[in-house]
């Protein structure tokens, strides 16, 4: 997440993340009961968690409750971080579990990732071409209409960005994880992450195409 190329080109809201931050050290301090470290952790990751959860749930109040649950879990369980993943993906995974707990009973429906297998691989069809014609506002609107698992995987992969700088204050938002990190968070193989991404894009294109035809 400290990739300067990404930060330089990312959408911003407001202060870039401090370079060289040691998130693991931050967690160790949290484990020792350092409240300042917890506050720092919240500033650093809270909005990323909120962004991802909000993307999945679509409900702000619920998302904020889940963020609260997640931060409490971090306070209580910082010692469980074993350094096998980035802190960002670790906290996102916690948030995902908290989201699942909250949504238990109306479990996220996972779209069949294999239905695209028979699609021809050459030559973009009209639905794919819809992406070529799309305006940004149309794309964001269509993403909101995707199934939660599709929004989830897109948010995990592409959600990275920076908010901060100048008069706006800020930090890093969004997940923006690598494919292996996404696989770890979702507890699925990397290949399934890829197929889910492809399915998500196909669904997005379909929505855009339908909207384009209705205009």
């Amino acid at each position, binding site marked *: 997440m400290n990739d300067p190329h990404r930060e330089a080109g990312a959408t*911003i809201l407001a202060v870039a993340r401090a370079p060289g931050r040691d998130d693991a050290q931050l967690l160790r301090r949290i484990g020792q009961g350092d409240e300042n470290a917890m506050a720092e952790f*919240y500033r650093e990751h809270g*909005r990323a968690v909120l*962004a991802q959860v909000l993307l999945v749930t679509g409900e702000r109040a619920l998302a904020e409750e889940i963020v609260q649950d997640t931060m409490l879990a971090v306070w209580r369980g910082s010692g469980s971080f074993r350094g096998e993943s980035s802190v960002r993906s670790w906290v996102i995974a916690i948030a995902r579990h908290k989201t699942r707990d909250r949504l238990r009973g109306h479990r996220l429906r996972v779209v069949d990732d294999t239905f695209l297998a028979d699609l021809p691989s050459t030559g973009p069809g009209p639905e794919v071409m819809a992406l070529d014609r799309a305006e940004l506002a149309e794309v*964001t609107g269509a993403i909101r209409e995707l199934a939660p698992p599709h929004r989830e995987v*897109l948010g995990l992969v592409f959600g*990275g960005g920076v908010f901060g700088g100048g008069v706006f204050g800020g*930090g890093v938002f969004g997940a923006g994880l690598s494919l292996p990190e996404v696989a770890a968070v979702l507890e699925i193989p990397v290949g399934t992450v890829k197929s889910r991404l492809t399915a998500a894009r196909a669904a*997005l294109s379909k929505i855009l195409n339908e909207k384009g035809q209705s205009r």
Partner: protein
Amino acid sequence: MNTDFPHLDLTDLIGAATGQDADNRVTAHLAGCADCRAEADRWNVVAAGVRGLVADTPEMRPLARPRRHMLADPRRRTTLAAGAAAALVVLGGAGYGATAALTGHAAAQDGTSDNAVLLTVVRGCAGLKMATGTLAAVNGDRLVIDTPGGRPVTVIVTPSAMVSISGASLSDITDGAPVTVMGARSGATLAADAVTVGQTKSLISNGGGQPTRGVTAKARPSQALPQPLVPDKADIVAGTVADAGAAGFTVVTSTGGRVQVTTSGGTLVTVMHGSVGELRVGATTIAAGYVEPNRTLSATAVLQPQPKKPFSGRSQGTVTVNGCSPTSIDNALTTAFAVGA
């Protein structure tokens, strides 16, 4: 990349879209493979859409004090019951601080939302930011751009700002106008894919604005145009327009060479010295400039890309400028968003 298959695989394309793995191999392949460029652009569109949504995440609120039973942890209960509560009070402060940082200028002026403003960093010029969205209103030198998610950004177009409008009419190509033409050469004639009216020297790969030999300069992806934007076998010529007519015009280069250019309905025309009044309300608009204390964006360059083909996902991607002058910034925006898009 699967070496048994000539195209980039999904991992490469995703890496390119996220900026994580855009290594030389991927970059080189994208420069020479139109199919993969198209695929990468589509993923860029998806990525930009997601970032637009994520960037619109509301400010964090202070976390509520937890219920006691949530703190139950046999090993640490005695210390955590007080500690967690105290920490969450701290968190509340942090949340408040973050909110205050974003809304400190509560009396947001000029119609700009006092909430998060969607801006993108522009590389190569400290403090330069970019707003992308739909032009909602024009009032004198003041623009309102609706960013993804509906949040407006107020843009003040400075007197020295460059205003570029892509998708202009072929009639905007007039005798005496400086132009850069990109297209496919056939003999001594260039069939124009894109014509940029104005000062566009940075688009020429040799950096001098004129071909050094022959009538045209070959676009060199690694130096001038962003690689995904360089059409295969594209030629570029720069000079001054002469003999402008319905079917084309002649470019007179600085060395006196004359290149016959043919145009068609498919020729993309970009005017680099437009006026604010020519901007189209409702069109995708990109403004680059500096954030003022009153939270407006003081723009040094404004661009409207080609209608209905304006957005290739790069509007949320990296734009690099070669200088901080309005011309440099305008050239960079035009290169990134309009020419060849």
